[in-house]
């Protein structure tokens, strides 16, 4: 299996650990990732708030670059916001031919051309659950994480508005993947409720309230597994403020799904970027420690 890889800006910055762990497990599973040459920002949520044309032309540029790859591979994006932006322009171009001339004209400033709706756009979770599958992951597990209970957190934009690979309200694809690592799965109601995205930066009270509800509902789990850099940083970085809001402790480890899977494949925490994490509790670290690993 091989994919064109679109890391997106976050994965080159504050979410470097998501990039490191994604590449590490893909290497371990024998899956080849080719980074899209010269990729640029997808527009994130900023372009959509300012200019609708830019919110389509920025992701279209990346689809056009991906299309230059001779092997016609699918694009894989680990960031849910990047995934949705790339997918949205692809869907819109196939349904709204009236949008094409303006996008073409913008891409022509760099002699780029996007034919059709571009390569197929896939989220990391889509690739893991549908192409790789829980059985292949279970085969790669050399160190079952049976001491851990994990709350699967999907967030929003890998599920909605386009329900591609999972139920958009009650998603389940992470259940089998987590079970494949040997860990238990925490049952909760917040798995697909929004983390508030950038609200925490601008409307702090609204953002913290959302984060607090999610952390509180994960009580009892050892960690929350995420598949989006925005969800990850929100849940990871504002636990004190959430605790103040809740009036009780909200401390919990927040890790990326590929970090969890990597641990079960006995890839070291450092090779999975876990040393960059802000939220690992002592209890969680003890459960994944090398000492534990050698007897496990």
């Amino acid at each position, binding site marked *: 299996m091989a994919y064109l890889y679109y890391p997106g800006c976050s994965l080159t*910055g504050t979410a470097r650990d998501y990039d490191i762990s994604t590449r590490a497990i893909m290497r371990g599973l024998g899956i080849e990732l080719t980074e899209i040459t010269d*990729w640029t*920002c997808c527009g994130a949520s900023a372009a959509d708030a300012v*200019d*609708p044309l830019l919110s389509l032309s920025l992701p279209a540029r990346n689809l056009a670059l991906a299309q230059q790859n001779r092997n016609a591979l699918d694009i894989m994006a680990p960031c849910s916001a990047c995934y949705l932006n790339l997918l949205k322009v692809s869907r819109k171009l196939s349904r709204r031919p009236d*949008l094409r001339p303006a996008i073409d004209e913008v891409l022509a400033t760099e002699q780029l051309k996007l034919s059709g709706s571009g390569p197929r756009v896939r989220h990391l979770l889509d690739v893991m659950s549908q192409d790789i599958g829980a059985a292949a992951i279970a085969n790669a597990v050399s160190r079952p994480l049976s001491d851990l209970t994990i709350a699967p957190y999907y967030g929003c934009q890998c599920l909605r508005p386009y329900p591609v690979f999972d139920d958009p309200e009650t998603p389940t694809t992470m259940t089998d993947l987590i079970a494949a690592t040997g860990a238990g799965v925490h049952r909760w109601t917040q798995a697909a409720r929004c983390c508030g995205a950038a609200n925490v930066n601008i409307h702090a009270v609204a953002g913290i309230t959302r984060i607090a509800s999610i952390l509180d509902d994960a009580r009892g789990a050892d960690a929350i597994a995420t598949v989006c850099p925005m969800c990850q940083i929100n849940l990871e970085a504002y636990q004190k403020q959430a605790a103040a809001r809740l009036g009780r402790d909200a401390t919990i480890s927040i890790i990326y799904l590929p970090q969890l899977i990597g641990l079960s494949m006995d890839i070291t925490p450092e090779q999975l970027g876990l040393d960059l994490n802000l939220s690992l509790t002592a209890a969680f670290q003890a459960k994944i420690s090398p000492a534990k690993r050698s007897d496990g």
Partner: protein
Amino acid sequence: MKSSPTSISPLQPDNAFAELRHQLQACMQCGACSGSCPNVFAMDQPPRMLWQRIIRGRQPVLSSHTFALCSACYMCTLRCPRGLPLTEAMATLKQIAAARHQPGARIEHAFHASFLQSIRRHGRVSETGFMTRFFLTAGSPLLPFRFMPLGIRLMRRGRIDWRMPAGAPSKLAAHFDKAAQLTATDTSTGTSKE
């Protein structure tokens, strides 16, 4: 203009409103959007009421904080029994507020404009460059202090990179200029010109 992207161009604000009203016309005021919204508790008017105001041409719409609080979770869009593009309608309101330099939207606008400026220059967002610019343009001297504790924690973990984005991706100035030119073609106000 002729080859113009009218359908996606925002927008003479009045046209934008007319377009929005047209898009929302089938709203039957069931409230599934308000009931599904994860941020409704912080809004001055629930989404259902905002649609009603737009359809009836009542105020206030742009001075409301409702659309600024939309975190684009798409739950309302998914559940709307009329299949209305409600999350997109929220984005359109953000665009109109930005184009009109709506006073209540100053900080959001500075945030988005700084982000886009960073992409325009470097192709990819430089998190440090973008946040610095945001602090300088938001016009709120205390703002940096809110972000400092997290900045320090991220820095200690080596998650903040002071260098410009790696890989020297294409600069997007021509891309941005062309998009701005096309967007401005049939509008008197245009979108934000950074």
